[in-house]
């Protein structure tokens, strides 16, 4: 293994101070089971700490952290994909948007529904929606995920529509 950079620990602690909560929430988007979620969070932290040995500052701290976190999570779920339920896209979700899922007043129920929706999405849509919920702007999402900004903007637009349909009963033309 390469010799860790001198400021590896400091960079890691800086990242954890800023993004620890986001990493835990991101893990919720990937793992429903609490034990698996805890394992994923630990894996992300280890990957993050190791990655800072190679951090040259070419990407922002935020982009770096989200890339490490999402790539680690995706590596885990794609390894299990054969056994996992089939994922859907935002477009497919919009077509089945729901009659009974509107106006969820209870926060916990709303959160559960939101998690269920996120976990049913295919990897790329899941990454985009998680970053959108974390209030990451479209330009940064494009840098993290590797899509063009235009493609991300379209996806974010679809996400807004799907969320509105699912949680607020808004009507729109797809």
């Amino acid at each position: 293994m390469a010799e860790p950079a001198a400021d590896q620990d400091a960079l890691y602690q800086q990242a954890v101070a800023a993004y620890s909560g986001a990493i835990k929430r991101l893990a919720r988007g990937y793992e429903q089971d609490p034990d698996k979620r805890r394992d994923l969070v630990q894996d992300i932290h280890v990957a993050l700490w190791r990655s800072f040995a190679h951090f040259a500052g070419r990407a922002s701290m935020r982009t770096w952290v989200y890339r490490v976190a999402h790539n680690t999570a995706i590596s885990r779920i794609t390894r299990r994909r054969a056994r996992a339920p089939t994922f859907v896209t935002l477009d497919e979700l919009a077509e089945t948007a729901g009659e009974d899922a509107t106006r969820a007043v209870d926060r916990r129920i709303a959160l559960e529904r939101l998690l269920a929706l996120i976990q049913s999405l295919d990897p790329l849509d899941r990454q985009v929606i998680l970053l959108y919920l974390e209030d990451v702007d479209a330009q940064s999402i494009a840098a993290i995920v590797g899509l063009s900004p235009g493609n991300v903007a379209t996806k974010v637009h679809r996400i807004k529509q799907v969320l509105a349909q699912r949680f607020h009963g808004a009507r729109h033309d797809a």
Partner: protein
Amino acid sequence: MTPDEPNDDLRYLWRSQTDDLPGLSLDIVQTRSRMLERRVQHRNIAEYAAALAVLAILLPAIWTASNVVLAAGGAVLLAGIAYVTYRLHAFGSARTLPSDLGARSCVEFHRAELERQRDLLQNIWTWYLLPFWPGMGLILIGATMERPEHWRFAVGTAVLAVLMAFQIAWMNKRSARTLQEMIDRLKENPVAALRRDPPSLTLAQRLSVWFLTSFLGATAVGFLVGRFFPEVKSSIFGLEHLPPVTRDGLFVLILIVAGVTVQALWWITRRWIKN
């Protein structure tokens, strides 16, 4: 466009989730990282131990082989196993700890994974098939020279092995082609490409691998039985009153039992390494 305000509530809800996971100190993270490295070391040790075990079984078999073709087959097989172990080891090492998780976007990371898998499948002849088959072929020829009455078994196994070699190569080439299509699509339309499942081993490919390990397992078990329980071996091959076909059938049965044993041992070892 749908107004943002309702979704702002959702975003607030998402970010205000109660934190049900304990925090991680730097010490814990460093310890976990060391544990990960130790797991890799354990895996390496298990691989070396397996290689040594094969060496311990095959070397005396080569030394005491009853004819030169059998001895040459054992030696070639040994070299093939060493080469394949090295390639698998290199492949596994590259797989365990990617250091560029943050340097590449999710799409780039995915593409690199696909390219790595494609290269492995494309070169299946050079790293997986050719190292095994010549040694196995020589062993079959040597065994037939020793016991010409079992020629049917030898010919049948050889034909099956050659067919399976081509079948494995064909399957892997097909998987590599699918991966290449996914890589090409990834360049044009990453969204569509990421939706497709990467090709996994088919039942036929798994059976081929199973056959190969069964053959190796049977070779090892045959040697061990002959070495330490010669009366058992002679009772099988000494059943002169049985027709040759029945005796060959018994040998096939041993092959299957040996294969299952090897697979079970391999599965237990992998579980042990994983934990």
